[in-house]
């Protein structure tokens, strides 16, 4: 078997300055994270609000750098990272998700006494890992990036350590995640064994040049890889960790997990499964079908029975992973760009909904039962209006982004001949209407019990909610520009 020999002493193989320059945006996040950690040591408690701004500034700078520095498709650092439209799309999506999370958590952190320094640094570190996942062109690098992300998120889950649920959630997440990593790594090893490389492009070349029938090593490897990835997007039947973890984690972290972790993992789904492993489509399609249908149906059915809105959102995020998998199954370019577009919409809807949950949070205690929403419709008009937009959009009503996104996904499925799958998906959407509307029922159609609850008003949180709500309207009414972006991003993979 041929092994890549890289002689590090040879100056030709060292990364050139130009390559490092291209990696600038990612390195910049790392620098911001380390700055936050260092400053945390010296800042007084009352000055620690500055950490938020340093982090947001760091993330925004990275976004700006990526827009300026990343022109076209190019592999850097031994072709282990690819800089293309796809990376650019996900980088900025993930950065936006991180910024919105940080903005909406300002007040939450104050209320819950979560350590600010660590919180910000961990968000930055895991964002760093996520972006590398989206760029990774090599399975080993993908794995390392995924671990960087995961370890950050494991700790974030347990950050509110006064609550026993937090410890349980973190432990559960860590153990399950470790298992998933094992699957993933085993899969990578088998694929390496079968193809002789961990580089995605070489694997792709191998797959297109060699007969795949009966190559059990390869297929087993691919299946194990799929399982690892399915864990990260909480696809059924690898979802058991998700509800408890989502419920136990501090609400901003839950939103961040539901959105950013999922987005990064879907970047992997697209780049690895949909793009490079596409010759294996015949062998994998049955498994993907089963996972997608189960994920949608189980997610929706269980969401229907929840009494806590936070848990409901956790299950609904599982169901949405199922919808997203439709695009992966469609396998064509339209499917890929549908996933990208839906990811964008989903990010806004979900972050917004968790933002409203945070606004309801009061005095060191999560307040996330349906009852907490009772009667707020005509008392806290802004929050209720925003929440209605998020719920209606999640349920897929026009003229909100959720509808255009679902439409695009279903269309990619029909176009590639998976009409049955899209029918199952729409029936699932009907199911989901029941529980999303329940929130609206509580807000507008039932009276609040007892006195009006003291809502904490934080300008940053409200700004974040307003941004997401307006974004959803924009994606619903004039989606042309983002649609075009997602199309270009997918086209850049070729």
């Amino acid at each position: 078997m041929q092994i890549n020999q890289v002689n590090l002493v040879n100056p030709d193989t060292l990364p050139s300055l130009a390559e490092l320059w291209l990696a600038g945006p990612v390195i910049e996040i790392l620098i911001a994270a380390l700055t936050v950690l260092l400053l945390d040591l010296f800042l007084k408690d009352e000055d620690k609000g500055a950490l938020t701004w340093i982090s947001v500034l760091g993330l925004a700078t990275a976004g700006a750098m990526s827009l300026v520095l990343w022109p076209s498709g190019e592999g850097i650092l031994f072709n282990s990272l690819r800089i293309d439209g796809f990376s650019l799309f996900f980088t900025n999506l993930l950065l936006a998700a991180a910024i919105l999370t940080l903005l909406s958590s300002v007040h939450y952190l104050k209320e819950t006494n979560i350590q600010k320094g660590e919180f910000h640094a961990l968000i930055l570190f895991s964002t760093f890992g996520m972006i590398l996942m989206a760029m990774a062109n090599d399975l080993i690098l993908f794995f390392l990036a995924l671990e960087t992300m995961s370890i950050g998120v494991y700790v974030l889950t347990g950050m509110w350590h006064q609550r026993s649920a937090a410890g349980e959630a973190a432990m559960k997440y860590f153990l399950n995640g470790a298992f998933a990593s094992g699957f993933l790594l085993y899969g990578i090893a088998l694929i390496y064994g079968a193809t002789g490389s961990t580089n995605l492009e070489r694997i792709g070349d191998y797959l297109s040049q060699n007969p795949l029938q009966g190559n059990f090593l390869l297929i087993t490897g691919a299946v194990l890889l799929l399982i690892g990835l399915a864990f990260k997007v909480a696809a059924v039947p690898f979802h058991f960790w998700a509800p408890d973890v989502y419920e136990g984690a501090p609400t901003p972290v839950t939103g961040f997990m539901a959105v950013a972790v999922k987005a990064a993992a879907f970047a992997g789904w697209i780049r690895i499964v949909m793009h490079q492993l596409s010759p294996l489509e015949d062998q994998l399609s049955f498994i993907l079908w089963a996972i997608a249908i189960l994920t949608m149906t189980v997610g929706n059915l269980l969401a229907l029975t929840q009494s806590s809105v936070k848990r409901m959102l956790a299950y609904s995020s599982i169901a949405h992973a199922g919808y997203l998998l439709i695009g992966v199954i469609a396998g064509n370019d339209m499917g890929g760009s549908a996933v990208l577009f839906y990811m964008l919409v989903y990010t806004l809807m979900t972050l917004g909904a968790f933002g409203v949950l945070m606004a309801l949070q009061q005095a060191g205690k999560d307040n996330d039962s349906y009852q907490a929403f009772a009667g707020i419709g005509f008392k806290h008009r802004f929050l209720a209006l925003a929440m209605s937009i998020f719920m209606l959009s999640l349920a897929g009503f026009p003229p909100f982004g959720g509808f255009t996104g679902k439409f695009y996904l279903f269309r990619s499925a029909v176009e590639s001949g998976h009409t049955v799958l899209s029918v199952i998906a729409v029936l699932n959407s009907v199911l989901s209407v029941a529980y999303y509307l329940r929130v609206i029922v509580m807000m507008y159609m039932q009276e609040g019990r007892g006195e009006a609850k003291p809502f904490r008003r934080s300008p940053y949180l409200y700004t974040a909610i307003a941004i997401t709500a307006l974004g959803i309207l924009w994606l619903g009414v004039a989606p042309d520009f983002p649609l075009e972006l997602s199309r270009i991003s997918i086209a850049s993979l070729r």
Partner: protein
Amino acid sequence: MTESFPGILTLLLGIPLLGAVVMGFIPRNSKGSLFGCALFFTVLDLLWSLNILSRFNSTLGEMQFVERVAWIPSYGVEYFIGIDGLSLFLILLTTLLGPIAILASWSIEEKVKEFLLFMLILQTSMLGTLLALDLFLFYVFWEAMLIPMYFIIGVWGGPRRIYAALKFVIYTMSGSLIMLIGIIALVTTASQLNQTTSFDLLRLYDLRLSFEQQMWLFLAFSLSFAIKVPLFPFHTWLPDAHVEAPTAGSVILAGVMLKMGTYGFLRFAIPLFPDAARAAAPFISTLAVIGVVYGALVAMMQSDLKKLVAYSSVSHLGLVMLGLFALNLQGVQGAVYQMINHGLSTAALFLAVGMIYERRHSRMIADFGGLWKVIPLFSVIFLVITLSSIGLPGLNGFVGEFLILLGAFKNMTPWAVVAASGIVLAAIYMLWMYRRVFFGPISPENQTLKDVGTREIVVLVPILVLIVFMGIYPKPILNRISPSVEKIIARMERPTTLSRQTLEERRTAEKEGARHAN
């Protein structure tokens, strides 16, 4: 065919929306100015639609006042609207019932601003549904209609409003989403044949699909429309929604929204899939006739006035469906005419029932009796509406029912015979109800009821005038409807299905062509 944007139809859509925006600046405790604002904009919309009526060319069957502009080019979606004889009077009905429903809601005291906002948004989305000629645009309006209605029933409705509102949404949505897949499949098939992606309805009319494709797509579309109509056995959401909805909600729901279903059949399901429609006609007509008789029988047994009117809608719309699926000129023309009739008379019935309810806080037939002596004017108005609803010659209902039966007798006599018996049943339950409410001994609680006030007369008179006018002089309306109906009938009679073989041949020819081009 002009294609200017923004044109007069966009203005028609925009006026209620503009009203909603203006209303945003009015303080929420000044009920008078809120109502004034909503009324001003809906009346303006009504006047604007009359202007459109006066400029409408009654000799054309084509789309008029067409506006077309790219909306989402990457989907191939356009903002494409227009009006023809099929939609013209439904639009007028919508703009007429808008201010009437708002005026009838004066008794609402709580959350007035939100209520009126939803009414205005609802108005725009209903008009949009009737105007849209792009399937995607149509679907957006079609679904957007649900949200304000959901809130109107759910917030301002009766005791079981939450259940009723949810049932309404779930039923309608399950149908619509299946239609969404149908739309996607239709457009995908079309784009494979024509090499361009477009949701343009008029171009999709010319598409030639195999019979099997037509059947599947017809099924997907009609399920959605059948639920909205509602065709038996998909009607169970209707009584709940009507009973719990506030008066304005019932008026709009019965007056306009139910017609969206029949309109959908006429505009989309039948002309897009003509062969499938013809094949399915006996089946759908059977369901329609069952609806006619079943609705009438159930209505007869109701003790609640609102429920009685709700079930009578099931019966009447069954008749409309029978007319549509007679698939000939008289039947379809009668169906379109009857849609407007039903909109007027049922809206008026719901308004009148609402007025009784406001006075007595009861809708039970048993609580009334002898009202004729106490409130004579109201009784006379109610009588006219009742007679219109049962199709007395000289009033509007007669014209529509007559045409429908005429059309149905031509193609499907047995169905027409059964349906005619349903009309007799309608006379029985309506008149029986009238007798129990307005004649007989009077109970002391009803002695002090007040007769109709000025506001209520203003609400009812326009409808009454139209009921009589459309009964004695239907010609100007039928004249404007028939060119468009003729066009649809002509489309039905043209051979549309290509045999599988020719399709294959054409595809290979196209492939050859593409190869040569390369």
